[in-house]
């Protein structure tokens, strides 16, 4: 008997030839919870990784969504974030799960995503150095951990804490788009020696990609330090 990592319901592993041979990945979520995840598949925006199947045609041009087009029109932000890829649609179920992870502090939940995250990393970001999106000291203490750091730790690759958060988190989403695009305040600073970043391909790891503003703020710090390219990998989009 397994117990669902999220709802604690008991369930039996589906038995097939892979599990008999011990090749199958461990199943962490019960059938109901598993079916609540919406994996992002098929056509996606080549930059932000959002699923086009869930997205009205009029908000895209060719392979990019309008949000990304606007980022790329801006001289300051063009090319700062090479691409983002996310595992799942940020639906109500995942919102609840991530809020339990972050606000209730249920760190264990990240272990349900190891295989899938590793898979995307291998496909899309092979060879990149993983940099977790940082929290401010206050927030980090309050929570006891940084969920982005836990997620990065699942990848089994080199993790460098290259960026520090110097400005305490505010509700990024409450700011207007204009404020976000301008972003004059410095939220992040380089936290390591430039040599550790220079010429490197980097993948920033975080729980959610919402507007892409925060991730780009971190990316620009790395770019200025000489990173070759910066991309991002998140659980939800």
């Amino acid at each position, binding site marked *: 008997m397994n*117990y669902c990592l999220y709802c*604690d319901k008991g369930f039996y592993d589906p038995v097939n030839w892979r599990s008999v041979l011990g090749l199958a990945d461990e199943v962490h979520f019960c059938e109901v919870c598993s079916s609540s995840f919406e994996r992002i598949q098929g056509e996606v925006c080549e930059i932000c990784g959002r699923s086009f199947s869930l997205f009205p045609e009029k908000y895209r041009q060719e392979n990019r969504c309008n949000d990304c087009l606007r980022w790329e029109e801006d001289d300051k932000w063009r090319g700062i974030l090479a691409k983002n890829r996310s595992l799942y649609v940020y639906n109500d179920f995942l919102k609840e799960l991530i809020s*339990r992870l972050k606000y*209730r*502090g*249920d*760190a*264990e939940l990240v272990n349900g995503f190891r295989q899938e995250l590793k898979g995307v990393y291998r496909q899309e970001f092979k060879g990149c150095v993983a940099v977790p999106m940082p929290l401010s000291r206050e927030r*980090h*203490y309050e*929570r*006891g*951990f*940084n969920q982005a750091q*836990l997620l990065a730790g699942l990848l089994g690759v080199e993790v460098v804490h290259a960026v520090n958060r110097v400005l305490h988190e505010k509700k990024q989403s409450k700011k207007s788009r204009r404020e976000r695009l301008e972003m004059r305040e410095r939220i992040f600073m380089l936290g390591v020696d430039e040599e550790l970043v220079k010429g490197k391909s980097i993948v920033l790891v975080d729980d959610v990609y919402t507007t892409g503003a925060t991730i780009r703020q971190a990316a620009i710090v790395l770019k200025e330090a000489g990173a070759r390219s910066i991309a991002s990998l998140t659980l939800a989009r």
Partner: protein
Amino acid sequence: MRFVSFFADGKTLAAPDALKPPDVSAAPVPFYKLPVLDPPDFFGHLPFSHELQAFLSGKLLSFDELPYPMDMIHEHYLHGCLTYVKGIAVDVGGSFVCKRCGNDKPRLFASFSCFRCKETECVYCRKCLVMGRISRCTPLVRWCGPQLDWRVDDVALEWDGDLSAAQKKASDQMVSRIGDEGELLIWAVCGAGKTEVLFHGVEKALKAGQRVCLATPRTDVVLELLPRLRKVFPGVTLAGLYGGSEEKSEGAQLIVSTTHQLYRFREAFDLVVVDEVDAFPYSYDQSLEYAVHQAKKGNALLVYLSATPSRKMKKSASLGHLAHVRIPVRFHGFPLPVPRFVWCGNWKKRLKKGRLPSNVVDWVSHQLEVKRQGFLFVPSVAALHQVVALLKAGFPGIEGVHAEDPERKEKVMKFRKGEVSIVVTTTILERGVTVPFTDVAVLGAEEDIFTESALVQIAGRSGRSKDDPAGDVLFFHYGRTNAMVDAKRHIEGMNKEAEL
């Protein structure tokens, strides 16, 4: 946060690293690595914060739950007003035990690399996370200074209602037990008027300076009881606790709480009344039992108020281990409506095809015709959505309400005003919903979720008003179950006992 231990006046004490005495040079460690601590001496002559006393008395809280600065809390520790205890202990067998919720299942403990205590594997409890995380580096704080003292001269019951003979018998029984240690079961049918049964017993306890708690599984019941109690006990400090409540009257003598909130209390109450009636689909699980037992004092009286006691409880009542008193008759003196079983075929298959069993449709249209409102209980939220959509297409005044429904309040209000005729629901609605001329039907009464006690409680929703005591109760089913038969027998038994 990390701690140091030190030796002072023959005792082993602890301090947060930032507040350690200047001459202590021990390396800071996570709280659980400290040696066994001694309770500090109480310095009675030193002043203490009455606010902190009120906030913390009878509770077990983490630092995060205390809205006071660390140095103030620690000063009270050094003065012997409070103690630090481990949040997660290790029992003799080497397994973890959460000191707040009692969880000892290994799978419900996990660990993470902790920014607070700097341990790479800081173990935490996954069971009671909703109340804030307890990990091994989290000490819990207990008040051990002067006891709270209430002004009992002002306590008086201001209520001149009448009790029925059966209510009075139960009330007298409870009054006679106040001050005793032990348990009492008040087994009362749905609609017995059980809140009034408590009034005299609670008054006696309050007058004796006891701290009293009424615990119920549901927030809406807390909200309903609060104004009633405030009215009948005007001289008493009263507080309502539920998830998200902003507690203001700290240190209240009388507390109305959801059972869940009791996890925060320790050896606080002399009298605890556990109300589990009308709780479907909520049930009194083992960890709530733990919460109740931890929250009461060792010599407290525990009163269970139930329409459908568990098998275990009924057994110990019949063996004489559990003192009990029955109220087999409703407040208005009329018998409980006895359910009728109606075969409705494979209703699930029909729903899939977008159709309802014809006798269910007939029931709804009959209700509308004779202008009687109705509850239609269904076994799942999925079924609820299907049934509501189908009924709405054919009838006016249909609404669906489930337990987590954000519009629940508005919909209940509409039902009460008569703007909604039939409520399709997965849950027992607020107890205040005693609209006369209301009947009850269950679709899929054979489903597992409809246990004997659930069905008894559901049937109890009809005929509650003295203006309309004979409501109709229909169980539409696809194969009768033991639970259905037992529920019917249960209701008939209560009626027989009441000689109705």
